[in-house]
């Protein structure tokens, strides 16, 4: 049996890699992919705790997180598409006007 | 989990048998396709290489190996080379959870002065009998999109990109209808394991309390709709006519594999036929009763198991012949009609079908 804190450490590593991606990159899609990576790291934490205490609540929560992340991905990509239609670039530094 | 040398050897044997069967599908299907299409189109077909053109596949394989391997200058080298391998993933892995024979007790044998199979372990002809059997198939089949879309993009060719995107949009649309249509068989069996689905179909049911029929899902009236949806979506999933926008000769040059030559093209070819075989095995398991021989309660001995394996192979062969038959009979659908069919016709029908089957199950008619 693999100790639970190993999974927590893996989750922490993935989460901070995601944080690094969000802070360092300018491409909007890459930032969005880093956010998905952070969400998955959190899913791993939930499942690690669910197995530690043999409770199903962690699993149900991960189920809902997956569904909501799917919805969020759809809407976020639609926002990027609309940004691209207006500004011809996906660089988030260029999205600096409140209204055009 | 304690396992010993006997378990490992038997598992390796199963893996070898399944892989050999699947890898041999491609050359046989190539011959069947070319002779079958020739039969339908009233022409001889390949008949020069060996009797009845039986060694045509060897000639094709030799050609693919010896041809020059061209990589376009603008292509992304890594992804261009990896894309055909993505295509092989779904076919080779989904076959692992499909039961292809009756489980039987191994008799105790004494060879070379040692006792084997003490305790009569049960030999289960399925490579991996997991609890979530059919979900694994859907999961791995949904990864098949990546081979096509990566190949289309990495070729840096407009026609390849369009072919790749159209094909992957079609595949993910019909995956929904496929999954929802298969849910009705899961409702009838009450489990996600494919072995449970086959055991449920090896029983009998009485139509109108009179006729004793094997409980194959295709014979049950509630599942006819789901069988039609699943069967047609299987064509869309494997990119076979009438849904072959990935290749679409005369429209897109050759679609996503325009820029591929020799061995990489052969890998795409192989992955298409292997996916077809895997999908036929899945249809046989879900709807045609898997390895079950109708009207016979098979005893759990080795010769009955061999007969069930032959029956399963026969069912898969019939389905593959239907795949070839449909390809050369029905014209290709227009792309917007295809997408409309997938989203506006099959998806609502699949939902309606789930409601019908759930009603039947609640009333204990299934």
């Amino acid at each position, binding site marked *: 049996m693999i100790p639970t804190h190993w999974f927590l*450490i893996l989750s922490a590593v993935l989460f901070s890699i995601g944080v*690094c991606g969000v*802070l360092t990159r300018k491409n909007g899609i890459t930032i969005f992919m880093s956010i*998905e*990576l952070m969400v998955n790291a959190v899913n791993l934490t939930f499942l690690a705790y669910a197995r530690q205490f043999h409770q199903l609540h962690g699993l149900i929560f991960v189920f809902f997180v997956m569904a*909501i992340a799917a919805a969020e991905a759809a809407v976020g990509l639609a926002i990027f598409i609309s940004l691209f239609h207006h500004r011809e670039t996906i660089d988030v530094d260029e999205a600096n006007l409140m209204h055009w | 989990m304690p396992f010993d040398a006997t378990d490992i050897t038997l598992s390796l044997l199963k893996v070898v048998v399944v892989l050999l069967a699947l890898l041999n599908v491609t050359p046989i299907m190539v011959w069947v396709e070319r002779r079958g299409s020739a039969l339908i189109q009233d022409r001889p077909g390949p008949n020069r290489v060996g009797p009845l053109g039986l060694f045509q596949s060897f000639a094709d394989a030799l050609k693919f190996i010896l041809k020059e391997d061209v990589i376009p200058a603008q292509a992304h080298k890594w992804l261009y080379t990896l894309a055909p391998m993505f295509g092989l993933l779904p076919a080779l892995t989904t076959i692992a959870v499909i039961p292809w024979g009756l489980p039987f007790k191994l008799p105790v044998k004494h060879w070379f002065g040692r006792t084997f199979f003490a305790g009569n372990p049960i030999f289960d002809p399925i490579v991996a009998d997991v609890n979530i059997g059919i*979900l694994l198939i859907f999961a791995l089949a949904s990864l098949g999109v990546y081979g096509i879309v990566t190949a289309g993009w990495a070729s840096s060719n407009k026609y390849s990109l369009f072919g790749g*995107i159209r094909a992957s949009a079609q595949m993910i649309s019909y995956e929904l209808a496929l999954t929802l249509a298969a849910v009705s068989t899961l409702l009838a069996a009450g489990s996600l394991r494919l072995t449970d689905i086959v055991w449920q179909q090896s029983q009998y049911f009485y139509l109108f309390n009179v006729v004793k029929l094997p409980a194959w899902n295709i014979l049950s009236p509630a599942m006819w709709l789901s069988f039609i949806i699943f069967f047609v979506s299987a064509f869309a999933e494997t990119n076979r006519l009438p849904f072959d926008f990935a290749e679409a000769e005369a429209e897109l040059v050759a679609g996503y594999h325009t820029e591929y030559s020799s061995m990489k093209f052969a890998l795409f070819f192989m992955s298409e036929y292997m996916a077809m075989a895997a999908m036929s095995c899945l249809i046989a398991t879900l709807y045609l009763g898997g390895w079950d021989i109708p009207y016979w309660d098979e005893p759990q001995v080795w010769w009955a198991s061999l007969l069930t394996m032959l029956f399963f192979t026969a069912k898969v062969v019939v389905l593959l012949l239907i795949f070839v038959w449909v390809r050369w009979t029905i014209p290709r659908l227009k792309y917007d009609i295809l997408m409309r069919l997938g989203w506006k016709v099959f998806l609502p029908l699949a939902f309606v079908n789930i409601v019908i089957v759930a009603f039947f199950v609640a009333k204990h008619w299934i």
Partner: protein
Amino acid sequence: MFEFAIFFFFAAVAVIFALVVVLHRNPVVGALALVASFFALAVMYVLLEAPFLAALQVIVYAGAIMVLFLFVIMLLNLQHKREEPTRPVQQFLGYTSSAAFLIGLIYYIVKYAAFTALPAGPFNSDARAIGMELFQSYIFPFEMVSILLLAAIVGALLLSARSVAR
């Protein structure tokens, strides 16, 4: 013994491909690397005795969400626009702060995470158990998520359609 080998191998795969996502300049390669990372995470979920969620992870994340990402990247033809490198100040601050965050997290996990032994017996996490729990205790969030998905579909359609009256 096998479990440890599988854990280390797939943990390494997940971390390496996550680094490729964050560091590679081509978003298509990043998206495919993220798919590989999600697949490795699905194996992690199997090690955590949740095979149903592992299959769901591959179906939903690797099989649907990432395909959506790839479509958007390819249809917007984003790979031909070279992304300008970030300003050195932002890079430095980004890397150092995320490294500090990681070190802090690992320190606190190793110091304070003291778990008792796992409960005996198997973890009943198959589809039947999840289904019972979902439709009994969590029925309200379940229905709400379906409405949320509907709202997301409508929102995505409205946002990505070019306005007709221009």
